[in-house]
C-alpha cells in the first residue's frame, strides 16, 4: 500500500476488494465442502461464514471519520484505502432431527454451494471487466 502507483492509480481499492471477495468465496466454499464431507459424521456441527454481516460492519467502520493531516509537518499516517472484511466461521445449531447430533442439512448446503459458486463467478467477472477496462485505457482504445 506504500507504492502510490500500485495502490492509487492503476489498481484502486475496487480491485483489492474484489480480490478479497474471491478469497472469501473460496473460504466459504471450503466450509461448505467440509459440511458436505461430514454429512455423516456424528456430533459434527455445520459451519458457515456470515459475509453480509461482516460487510455491514466493515462499512460502518468505514463511515467513521478518518484522521486527517491538518498540518504539513505532521507525520503521514496510513490512510484507510480499502474495506477490510473479516468473517469468522460460525457453527450452526442442530435442528434436532436425526439421532447423530449432526446439524448438516444437505439441501441447505447444496443451495449455498450453488449460490456461492455463482457469486464467485460473478465476482471473477467483475474483476475481469475492471481489468479489461484498464487494458482498454492502456491500449488507448485500439
Amino acid at each position, binding site marked *: 500500500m506504500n507504492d502510490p502507483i500500485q495502490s492509487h492509480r492503476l489498481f484502486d481499492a475496487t480491485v483489492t476488494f474484489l480480490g478479497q471477495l474471491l478469497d472469501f468465496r473460496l*473460504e466459504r466454499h*471450503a466450509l461448505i465442502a467440509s459440511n458436505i*464431507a461430514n454429512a455423516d459424521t456424528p456430533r459434527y456441527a455445520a459451519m458457515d461464514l456470515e459475509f453480509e454481516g461482516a460487510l455491514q460492519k466493515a462499512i460502518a467502520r468505514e463511515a467513521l471519520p478518518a484522521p486527517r493531516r491538518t498540518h504539513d509537518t505532521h507525520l503521514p499516517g496510513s490512510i484507510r484505502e480499502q474495506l477490510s472484511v473479516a468473517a469468522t466461521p460460525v457453527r450452526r445449531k442442530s435442528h434436532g432431527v436425526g439421532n447423530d447430533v449432526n446439524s448438516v442439512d444437505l439441501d441447505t448446503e447444496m443451495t449455498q454451494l450453488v449460490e456461492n459458486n455463482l457469486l464467485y*463467478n460473478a465476482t*471473477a467477472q467483475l474483476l475481469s471487466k475492471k481489468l*479489461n477496462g484498464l487494458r482498454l485505457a492502456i491500449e488507448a482504445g485500439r
Partner: protein
Amino acid sequence: MDFSVAFDISASGLQAQRLRMHLISSNLANIQSTRTAQGGPYRRKDAIFTGSPAQPQSFGKILNLASNLPQGVEVTAIVEDSRDPKRVYEPGHPDADPQGFVLLPNISLIEEMVNLMAATRSYEANATVIDAAKNMALRALEIGR
C-alpha cells in the same frame, strides 16, 4: 487457503463414502456366511467417521478459531456390530449345534440397502462440490484474459 484445500476436503468425503460402500457390499455378500477366520458367523461391519483438519494449522490459529476450520472426514475405525447373531433352526446344516440351530449373521437387507442409498447420495454430493470448485478455479484462471 487455496483450491487444493477445497479439493482435499471433498476428496476425503469421496474416499470415506467409498469405504462405507465397500463395507456395505461386504455385509451384503456375507449375509449367509456362517464361518469366518475369527470363528463364528460373520458380523456386520460399519465405518466410524471423524472430522479431521483439512490443512496443517499453527497452534495459535487453531486456538483462535476454536477449531472452526474446514474439516475433511476420516474413517478412524471399522467396528463390528455387537448385535447377537440370528438363531435359525436348520438341523441339516453342517454348522448346526446339537439342538439343530445355526447362527447366521444379524444383517438386515433393508438396513443395508438404506445405508447404500445414503452412501451413494453423499458420494454424489461430494462429487458435485468438486465440480463446483473446479468451475471456480477455471473462472479464476480466466480473470484478465
